[in-house]
């Protein structure tokens, strides 16, 4: 590989990082948005090329500054990172056209360049976590993405945005510090930070209690970022009060990257079934089940739709963790599929809700009566997203739940099968509540003249909605990538 193409993996991180300060000093107006749009589009294309070249040419190893690993920092791209990086960059590129109008409506004009600057930093951090092959580098990127997302959340219109950003900051910093403690402990035992090198050296010291402690610290640290039940308390507030674009972006990418990191630690950093010697998988199944049921029930009783969808996100994270908990290739495949499909469905749903907020400045259940009839296109996208969330055949959500149930059946985990089905039924209830309010209730007098959302909001929303249907019918691409990534991780039933 020659020229720029050889630096592909690095460019994905460096372009948004360099663009962020440039965007911050751009004049008010739409130039900040235009540059951000351009950067995310370039990154999405690069991530696509990266996935293609990993699939055809094998693992990419990029040495930063020409320092050979394990001394230098290495970016190591296999089919798993390339897949997650494409999800992050793709979602960002689809969200950005949507951001233009939504952000002009929700954020004071003088803050707009700073907003896009923070968004780019967050984007850079998330891509960095997926790209890097150095575990301390993961911590740095984790903090870049977290710090910028605290700032993004605090830009919400209500003052509760500030308190939820503060709450997230406390929880997130504790999580990141736990991760740092864990990294320090395993570094003290192995003397290396390179993930591939760690995987080689750790088996020799597996019996040491320090390694077990480090493992526990790392897993809990990531679980906080992941919003794994019962560590999810920061998530509903943060998603509810953040500007809609931030909610879309974080819901579709941030937790996904945390799931990726969890898989990477459980299966690559600690190889040879270290994790199955600890109670972690049983714990994941129990917490996954508890998360699915309790968060879905909570979702039913919410009056704010954004909050309802946030609780539903916690439940969906439960599904992903359940997939990891099965500790089988099929389980990890299901997790990866759900990671991708959930990004599509939650993206579409939050975008549709954002369109309603754009028109009536509210998304409380009692304010949206009858709007579905006045905004048919928004409503249509919301229904497709909702069906996908429930897991109706023909949508993306069905594919991932199907694989999850297959993984559960493979291990005869009947309780998990029942929970997955009950979770879907609970999703029917809360999605039904939204549809009932939007379509079957009489329209409020004040909202009689509400018009359909502008095209710039509808196109991204429908792109994601149609993607839900496309990936529900044509499963070759997603299942193929997820399977090869799961096999690469080398999971075998314990």
């Amino acid at each position: 590989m020659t020229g720029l193409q050889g630096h592909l993996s690095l460019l994905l991180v460096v372009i948004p990082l360099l663009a962020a300060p440039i965007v911050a000093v751009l004049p008010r107006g739409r130039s900040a948005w235009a540059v951000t749009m351009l950067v995310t589009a370039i990154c999405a294309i690069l991530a696509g090329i990266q996935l293609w070249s990993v699939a055809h040419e094998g693992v990419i190893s990029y040495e930063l500054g020409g320092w050979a690993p394990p001394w230098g920092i290495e970016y190591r791209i296999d089919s798993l990172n390339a897949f997650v990086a494409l999800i992050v960059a793709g979602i960002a590129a689809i969200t950005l056209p949507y951001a233009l109008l939504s952000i002009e409506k929700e954020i004071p004009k003088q803050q707009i360049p700073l907003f896009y600057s923070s968004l780019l930093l967050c984007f850079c951090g998330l891509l960095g976590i997926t790209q890097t092959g150095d575990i301390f580098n993961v911590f740095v990127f984790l903090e870049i993405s977290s710090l910028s997302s605290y700032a993004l959340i605090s830009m919400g219109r209500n003052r509760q945005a500030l308190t939820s950003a503060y709450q997230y900051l406390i929880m997130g910093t504790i999580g990141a510090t736990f991760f740092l403690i864990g990294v320090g402990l395993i570094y003290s035992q192995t003397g290396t930070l390179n993930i591939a090198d760690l995987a080689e050296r750790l088996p020799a010291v597996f019996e040491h209690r320090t390694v077990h402690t480090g493992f526990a610290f790392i897993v809990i640290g990531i679980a906080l970022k992941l919003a794994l039940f019962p560590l999810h308390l920061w998530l509903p507030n943060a998603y509810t009060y953040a500007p809609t674009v931030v909610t879309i972006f974080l819901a579709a990418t941030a937790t996904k990257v945390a799931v990726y990191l969890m898989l990477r630690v459980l299966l690559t950093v600690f190889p040879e079934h270290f994790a199955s010697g600890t109670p972690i998988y049983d714990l994941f199944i129990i917490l996954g089940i508890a998360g699915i049921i309790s968060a879905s029930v909570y979702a039913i009783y919410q009056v704010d739709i954004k909050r309802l969808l946030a609780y539903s996100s916690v439940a969906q994270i439960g599904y992903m963790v359940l997939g990891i908990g099965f500790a089988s290739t099929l389980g990890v495949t299901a997790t990866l599929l759900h990671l991708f499909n959930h990004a599509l469905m939650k993206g579409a749903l939050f975008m549709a809700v954002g369109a309603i907020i754009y028109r009536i400045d509210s998304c409380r259940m009692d304010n949206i009566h009858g709007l579905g009839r006045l905004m048919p296109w928004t409503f249509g996208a919301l229904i497709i997203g909702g069906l996908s969330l429930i897991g109706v055949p023909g949508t993306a959500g069905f594919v991932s739940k199907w694989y999850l149930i297959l993984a559960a059946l493979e291990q005869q985990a009947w309780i998990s099968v029942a929970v997955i089905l009950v979770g879907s039924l609970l999703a029917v209830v809360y999605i039904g509540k939204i549809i009932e309010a939007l379509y079957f209730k009489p329209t409020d007098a004040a909202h009689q003249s509400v018009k359909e959302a502008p095209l710039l909001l509808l196109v991204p929303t429908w792109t994601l909605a149609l993607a839900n249907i496309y990936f529900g019918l044509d499963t070759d691409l997603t299942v193929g990538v997820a399977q090869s990534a799961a096999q690469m991780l080398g999971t075998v039933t314990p």
Partner: protein
Amino acid sequence: MEFILGHYNYWVVIFLMMVGFYTVISRGNLVKKIVGLNIFQVSVFLLYISTSTVKGGTTPILKDGFEIYSNPLPHVLILTAIVVGVATTALALALVVRIKEAYGTIEEDEIHKQDHSL
């Protein structure tokens, strides 16, 4: 006795970690929470630095006659972590200032009361 004195640094680390963690959880004052968070982070810095010492080692410099030296890498890592910690504290304090402007208080329970009386 050897066990206690030999691990002196680590006892300090554990003590500071617990003090910081407890402060974050138990205090209702938003600034005190940040102080706790800082103590918690500092304990991790100490943990890293402590693991880098080599018995009888000198500072890591290239000079004839000095064969054994401490591991410099954790120090470098911790410099990065300190920068991250400073950024976190700055952001947290900025948020507290904004919260004070919006609510007129930085006590958690009073903020909760105001939010729920709406």
